């Protein structure tokens, strides 16, 4: 067999498919990867250090910027952690608003993933179709809280804004529209032979490995582990709604694709019920002291973000500022498995596998 010289290729930090400033140093033998070393930290902003000098309310806008594709869930995990520490009762209407925006956010985030993933694989149009639908969600958020990406919508004890006139109806109308579009997506992509050949059997791992690497979200559920925090350790009011946890057993990129695709449908189901049960009236803020000083102690809360388990660990010393605030960032944990998956794959599969993990660099680097 003819051997070629080993080629050291620097993929990133500026590369179309690294989804941000992420760098992988790969050793190539021909086009086959023999070793991959991820390098991260280009987007490290020291959120956790900054938080030590900010009050809890002031930290919330910083969480928007961690996983900037899914700011609502980030908002929630911090508020939820503080509320757990303070043992706060959240008004019903606020809980519903939170749940609705989080599920809309999940759809929006998965749409971004779907579009960019197909862009990685080489198809252009799905990206623009997905962004058309995402734009509708973002416009709804813009109407609700006045921002399109960094929402800063939730506060400790509730939400900042009540739903404006007719907003809930917009959400209601969005559900059948989105279902219709999902069918179109399926026709466009899910049966495409080239696409299937690209993703089937690529980046395979089993449940044991997934658990060992602490994967969460669709990355874990694609291996057959039925673990969704919304079901297994319910938070907010998720236990009131009926929905399924999509699971695939293959553990390859295609399984992850199917799980995320099905998750959009399940989110629509939750939304449908939430919109129906939405309380007519009520407060949107609990009675919260002006200066939030949670009791001394520590808490770790975790919720299901679109990317997996996002956790928030607070050590409080009964000060307005957290003594230590640590985020368990799902992208960061999920990315660890990458070097293991890449060995023996080609350059083309590098893009497929990295896209399949679904990372957001703002979250990886904290």
């Amino acid at each position, binding site marked *: 067999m003819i051997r070629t010289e080993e080629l050291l290729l620097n993929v990133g930090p500026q590369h179309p498919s690294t989804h941000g400033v992420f760098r992988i140093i790969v050793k190539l033998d021909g086009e086959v990867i023999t070793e991959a070393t991820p390098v991260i930290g280009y987007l490290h902003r020291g959120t956790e250090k900054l938080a030590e000098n*900010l009050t809890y*309310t*002031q*930290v919330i*806008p*910083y969480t928007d910027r961690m996983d900037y594709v899914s700011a609502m869930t980030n908002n929630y995990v911090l508020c939820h952690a503080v509320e757990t520490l303070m043992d706060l009762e959240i008004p019903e209407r606020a809980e519903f608003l939170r749940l609705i925006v989080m599920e809309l956010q999940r759809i929006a985030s998965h749409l971004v993933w779907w579009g960019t993933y197909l862009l990685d694989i080489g198809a252009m*149009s799905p990206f623009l*179709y997905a962004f*058309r639908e995402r*734009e509708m969600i973002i416009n709804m958020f*813009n*109407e*609700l*809280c*006045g*921002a399109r990406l*960094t929402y*800063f919508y939730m*506060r400790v004890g509730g939400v*900042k*804004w009540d739903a*404006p006139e007719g907003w809930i109806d917009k959400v209601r109308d969005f559900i059948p529209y989105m279902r219709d579009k999902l069918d*179109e997506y399926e*026709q*466009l*992509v*899910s*049966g*495409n*032979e*080239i*696409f*299937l050949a690209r993703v089937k059997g690529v980046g395979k791992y089993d449940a044991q490995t997934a658990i060992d690497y602490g994967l969460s979200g669709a990355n874990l559920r694609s291996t057959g582990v039925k673990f969704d925090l919304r079901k297994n350790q319910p938070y907010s009011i998720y236990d009131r709604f009926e929905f399924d946890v999509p699971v695939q057993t293959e553990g390859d990129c295609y399984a992850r694709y199917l799980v995320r695709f099905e998750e959009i449908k399940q989110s629509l189901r939750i939304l449908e019920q939430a919109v129906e049960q939405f309380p007519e009236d009520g407060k949107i*803020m609990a009675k919260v002291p*002006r200066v939030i000083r949670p009791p001394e102690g520590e808490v770790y809360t975790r919720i299901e973000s679109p990317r997996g388990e996002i956790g928030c660990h607070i050590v409080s010393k009964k000060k307005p500022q957290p003594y230590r605030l640590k985020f368990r960032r799902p992208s960061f944990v999920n990315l660890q498995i990458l070097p293991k998956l890449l060995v023996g794959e080609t350059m083309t599969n590098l893009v497929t596998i990295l896209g399949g993990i679904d990372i957001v660099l703002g979250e990886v680097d904290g």
Partner: protein
Amino acid sequence: MKGIVKGMGVTLKNLTKKKITYQYPDVPLQMPDRFRGVQHFDPEKCIVCNQCMNICPTECIDLVGKKNPDPEKKGKVIDTYDINFEICILCDLCTEVCPTEAIVMTNNFELATYSRDDLFKNMEWLNDNNTNVRKENSINLQPKSIPSKAKKEVK
């Protein structure tokens, strides 16, 4: 082949559909009322309570008060008020804590300039930025407790 043909059908169908491009600079963007844009500042209303400066997570607000020139009245009036839009994240906290609505959000968002120095906006600029002011500013989260001193001045 079936999947590919189906996909081709979808793209062909979209060829004739309505385009969603928004001709932004030609057609101005209408933001919803709650949109958090560049702040408008009204020096008349400001009571120099410093709350906006203290709450700002990025410390982009700088303000200095001075003694009220009218010897009859107590308290302070605003002297300089600057927002550094290089670091302002338009998070809405300053307008949320302001007890007198001296600082409010507007729907204006165009801040692009050729120089970083131009992003440093002073009191006059912020006062002149008085179009598209947000209507819903009065919805404040926190129970508003205007200090007794301030209350008099507002009246």
